């Protein structure tokens, strides 16, 4: 663990990513403490509409006169929550499917991989759009739609890694020692697959956050919540581009870029640390 950390710290972009993430998560958690939710309510907007940044509203105001800063701040909570929840769902499903397909083999494996490949081939966004159209609007649907489209990649990865681990002679040794399925999976396969799943999780959160913003931008988000995607949706809907209201567009977009990039950098740093072949000598 210590060696792992030492190796991780050497990767500067990874550390930067981690720092940004820590800051973002802290801010998101502290939003209810540091700000007042009331400012998000359209009917209680306090400021003039379409105002560029000023002392009272650091990041300007939107078409209803609400503070963009406040919305961005609260939007982080929704975007992060959806990203993490969807990832947990997809990584969970993907890991179980991949593990089962690799470990048990036979017709079950064939069937599971067929289904996985099918979903892997479908354009994820199109499927997510269809799912969020036919299911009731809400944050749960968004999580489900993203999770349901992101799991096949994890399944493939976990299956490949499980196969690689199970081809190792120490699995044969464990079998000869008398180990059953539970022993092999619990003591050897899972610990061997875990690092890769961790990397994959980090990278999946990144794409899940982008997916959330895209779905919300297309108007499929939870109407009762402010997320970075829904802010951009509102901005387009009310002509922020033609108004030249860059202050309404920049903050949510930069938020997405920052978080996604931070997750990606962390993931790549983890990958480098955990996969010695990628390490620069």
């Amino acid at each position: 663990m210590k060696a792992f950390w030492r190796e991780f710290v050497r990767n500067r972009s990874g550390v930067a990513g981690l720092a940004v993430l820590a800051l973002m998560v802290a801010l998101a958690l502290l939003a209810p403490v540091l700000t007042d939710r009331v400012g998000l309510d359209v009917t209680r907007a306090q400021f003039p509409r379409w105002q560029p940044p000023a002392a009272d509203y650091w990041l300007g105001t939107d078409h209803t006169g609400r503070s963009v800063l406040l919305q961005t701040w609260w939007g982080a909570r929704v975007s992060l929550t959806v990203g993490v929840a969807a990832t947990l769902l997809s990584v969970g499903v993907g890991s179980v499917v991949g593990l089962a397909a690799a470990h048990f083999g036979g017709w079950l494996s064939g069937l599971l991989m067929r289904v996985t490949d099918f979903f892997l081939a479908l354009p994820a966004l199109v499927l997510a759009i269809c799912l969020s159209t036919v299911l009731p609007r809400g944050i749960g649907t968004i999580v489900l739609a993203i999770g349901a489209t992101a799991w096949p990649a994890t399944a493939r990865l976990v299956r490949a890694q499980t196969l690689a681990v199970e081809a190792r002679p120490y699995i044969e040794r464990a079998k000869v020692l008398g180990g059953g399925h539970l022993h092999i999976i619990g003591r050897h396969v899972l610990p061997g697959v875990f690092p890769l799943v961790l990397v994959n999780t980090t990278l999946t959160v990144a794409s899940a956050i982008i997916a959330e913003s895209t779905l919300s931008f297309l108007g499929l988000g939870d109407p009762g919540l402010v997320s970075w995607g829904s802010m951009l949706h509102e901005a387009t809907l009310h002509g922020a581009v033609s108004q030249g209201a860059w202050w309404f567009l920049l903050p949510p977009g930069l938020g997405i870029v920052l978080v996604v990039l931070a997750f990606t950098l962390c993931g790549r740093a983890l990958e480098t640390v955990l996969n010695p072949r990628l390490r620069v000598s």
Partner: protein
Amino acid sequence: MTALLELRDLSVQYRTERGEVPAVRGVDLTLAAGQTLGLAGESGCGKSTLAMAVLRLLPKSARIGGEVLLDGEDVATMSWGRLRAVRWAQASVVFQGAMHALNPVRRIGEQIAEPITVHAEAGHEPSRTVLRRRVAELLEQVELPASRADAYPHELSGGQKQRVMIAMALACEPRLIIADEPTTALDVIVQAQVLDVLGRLVADNGLGLMMISHDLSVLAATCERIAVMYEGRIVEQGPSRELMGAPKHPHSKALAAAFPVVGDPEFRLTPQDAAGDGGTLLRTEGLRVDFPDRAGGTTHAVAGVDLEVREEEIVALVGQSGSGKTTLARTLLGLQQPTGGRVLFDGEPLPAGGRALRAYRRQAQLVLQDPTSALNPRHTVYQAVAEGLRIHRVPGDERELVADALAKAELRPPEQFFPVLPHELSGGQRQRVVIAGALALGPRLLVADEPVASLDASVRGEILALLLRLRAELGLATLVITHDIGLAWNIADRVAVMYHGKLVEVGPVEQVLLAPTHPYTKRLLAAVPRGAVTG
């Protein structure tokens, strides 16, 4: 006359995260035109680095000191252009593991012809037909049909690929060939053929040859002189016969001992009549294992085997890769279900699964070929040895049992090894941990699949001695599976020769190895380098 190749005080250091690591430390070597020199040593002794240094093929992290003179010209001072001109035209390399040394997606004909085009003078590039003819000629020299020029590397067998490497090395008619482990990973019989081709071509063309190998007997069969390398230095050098017959340096002795002369009583480590006359422990009756093959047919990996292992007996199962010996071993341990016939342990048929099979696993244990991959890299020595104890919920104090098993495998003091991870151990120590893990369950039979094949020569003797001692002290019966006839001569009481899924000859070691009756056994013995069967 200047020497073909002269190394003067050559040293190579690698810059790594842990600072500079020396690989070669002050080597002086001379090779005159037409001479053959063997460079022997264990993995990590610096012999491959030395070979790569000759053509300046080392990675950028390597720092080279001293001089490498090719035909009197220092390689280090050559310009890039001059160096490229010298590469392959003056000295070429037959790389280790032709599998990876050939570009997988280009036809071998193109790859053989490539250096010819590269080294042709500008404007005088040979035409396609000339090239084709030359490639055909080269392939013929290594005894491959010219039609193979259109094949891709994966379509060739290991021996054929190595021949292609040799043909490629001859393409520009160099005066020096450096062969780096040219026959490692090949079967004894194929190895003999490849060495034969290489030796003939070198002699016919009067080439200089520097051959690198961990296998002294291979070098002795091809080279006039042998230099033994150890920790980056040449520790002994001399004519092959002398060095093989009477090695002086302790390391040369260990290397020589690793390639025993079959028939020489000095290499027979097992005492006469050590086997005792216990009852039958394990018996197979008409055992068959079939696999479906790609074409939809059936491969008979094990085709009707009757084998017997008695109590306290060491039996060697000898065969080439593909003979079915590993499948047989897996079936004996219940890892593979037989298609036909049966396995009897202590007179009882082997259970197919469930609790009974698990109980059988306490009786018969496995020692794998490569201890590095046989141990989970994340588990400490303690965890690895205790794994079986925990699975079987063996009663008693776990620490004591683990310590006891480690002590039996001669890892002393055992407590010191508890928290150690496999990568902190040497190869021999790792194999001892694997053996300790097996011993912890108190088995009566050990199936050892190539137990020393991936270990360095100097460790080989220790592990063999351990197996013999386990038999003497614990009464352990052992089935050793190996491609190495010398190993059978070293320790086995009886030997079974396997060929195409069948046992072609079974009997006491002295009888089978000294007076073989089956033609395959005879061929196998003849192919062993320097395999003059005395006695």
